[in-house]
């Protein structure tokens, strides 16, 4: 092959990573789809109808609709942060896959782009399934819902990169417990998914604004019940900022761990 000058960022590595993931996905898509569909259904039944029978309406919405839209964001968090953390850690430490990839014309930032983009697109699209389930449970359809995949993928990019970054920070795979309990659980709960943040104490309301998931919850809810253009632009900006920050930290962390 003739020597050619390669660009700093190329798509070939991303396609290579996707090729691998698609090959695996063809084998696992049934179980992934099962989990993505059944889990939100259970949540909706338990919270929507369980709590819903006690609460009726909350923040002006039927509780089942409130939760149905909230679960979309929750799914975007979990379907991206967990693979970002565990898959990346396992491939780096146990399988040495990244050593093999970095011996080819692939740089660390391209590897991170390939891994995170796959997780984000897969996780972002699967996290729209709860919305379909909520529609079955009576959520009124709206044209804005077509924008939901954009919001969930954007959210998932940030959390996938967060997971990749965390995989370079933890000293062992067991240390992910700290991340799950200490970071992901508060993010998941204080985001307006199961209850509105307006009812929280002032400090918690302020904290919620720094929670990327809160911005995703708001966007999904507005997509279903009506956009508020300026506010929603702010939410998109917050998610983009989160993803950018996580990109810098994930690439820096992976470079530190993979290149000595």
């Amino acid at each position, binding site marked *: 092959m003739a020597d*050619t000058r390669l660009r700093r960022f190329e798509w070939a590595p991303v396609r290579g990573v996707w090729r691998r993931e698609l090959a695996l996905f063809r084998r696992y898509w049934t179980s992934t789809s099962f989990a993505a569909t059944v889990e939100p259904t259970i949540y909706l039944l338990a919270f929507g109808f369980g709590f819903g029978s006690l609460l009726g309406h909350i923040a002006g919405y039927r509780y089942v609709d409130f939760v149905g839209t909230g679960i979309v964001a929750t799914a975007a968090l979990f379907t991206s942060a967990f693979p970002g953390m565990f898959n990346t850690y396992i491939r780096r430490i146990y399988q040495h896959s990244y050593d093999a990839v970095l011996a*080819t014309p692939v740089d660390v930032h391209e590897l991170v782009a390939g891994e995170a983009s796959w997780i984000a697109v897969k996780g972002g699209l699967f996290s729209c399934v709860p919305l379909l389930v909520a529609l079955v449970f009576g959520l009124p359809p709206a044209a804005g819902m077509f924008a939901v995949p954009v919001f969930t993928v954007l959210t998932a990019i940030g959390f996938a990169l967060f997971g990749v970054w965390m995989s370079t920070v933890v000293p062992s795979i067991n240390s992910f417990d700290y991340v799950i309990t200490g970071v992901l659980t508060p993010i998941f709960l204080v985001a307006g998914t199961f209850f509105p943040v307006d009812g929280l104490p002032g400090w918690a309301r302020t904290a919620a604004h720094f929670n990327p998931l809160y911005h995703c919850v708001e966007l999904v809810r507005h997509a279903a019940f009506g956009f508020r253009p300026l506010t929603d632009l702010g939410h998109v900006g917050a998610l983009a900022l989160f993803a950018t920050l996580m990109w810098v930290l994930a690439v820096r962390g992976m470079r530190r761990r993979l290149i000595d």
Partner: protein
Amino acid sequence: MADLPAITLRDVVKRYRDKDGSHITAVDGLTLDVPAGVCFGLLGPNGAGKSTTMRMLTAQSRADEGAITVLGHPIPAESKEARAVMGVVPQTDNLDEELTVRQNLEVFAHLYRVPRAGRRGAVDRALEIAQLTDRPGTRVVNLSGGMRRRLLVARGLVHSPRLVLLDEPTVGLDPQVRADLWGLIAALRDEGTTVLMSTHYIEEAERLADGCALMSGGRIVAQGTPGDLIAHHAGGSVEEHHGPPDRLAEIEALVRRAGLPTRRTGPTVSVLRAEHIPPSLADALGNGDRVVRRAANLEDVFVVLTGENVG
């Protein structure tokens, strides 16, 4: 271009920080030229700096001092271009176990930028190299150790590289698989591919390498063709004496007094340059059942130069 070395290292130093904060010098002022189109062996025991040197050539490890070029590309500035035209076969098996044989090769054909039109042909050729044409759909987890190693080699060759780095290619393999791989490496060199191979198997280097460098403590202690190195440092033949410790100590003293190098390995003293043993010394040493004469090898050279065993 053909006259330029495939790899040059000039005064390369690599230090690692230990857990207690002190520095370990893994590669200590390494200067080496690997000519294009040859099979070159990097020999030395574990910890000699061979793998670190290999990693520096792919820029996965960054030199603290010195200059490196690979196929004319300065490293790390143009390492991506260099990696596009070299193949790497690591010591650690890092095949994707969840994928099939063919899928493993396809992923790397993408990563190595094999053009779409040639990808299928490249993968088929790599399957032939791996001798796995009848198992393209088998998942790697179900392959034997020898098959996995052949696939690992074929994966590094999927883009027909001009240079191949083989890090301990046959470590832990049974003799048949090792012989297969030696045939493959010899064929690559015959086709004009430059091969840099690190090994601590002396026989491997003697059979395959056109030239070799002996490494110890991050430095090159000798360099040349295996034949020249043996002739220069260990002579033509070696006489091995087996016996109790007292007798061995006596033999060592006698031989050193005669000015010949010796080597002690367990219950054996080897007298190097045995063809120069004078008749008087030969009489004193005796020639009973416990004496064996053999040709000198690179292991002898290594022990003479460093006092360490390679294997």
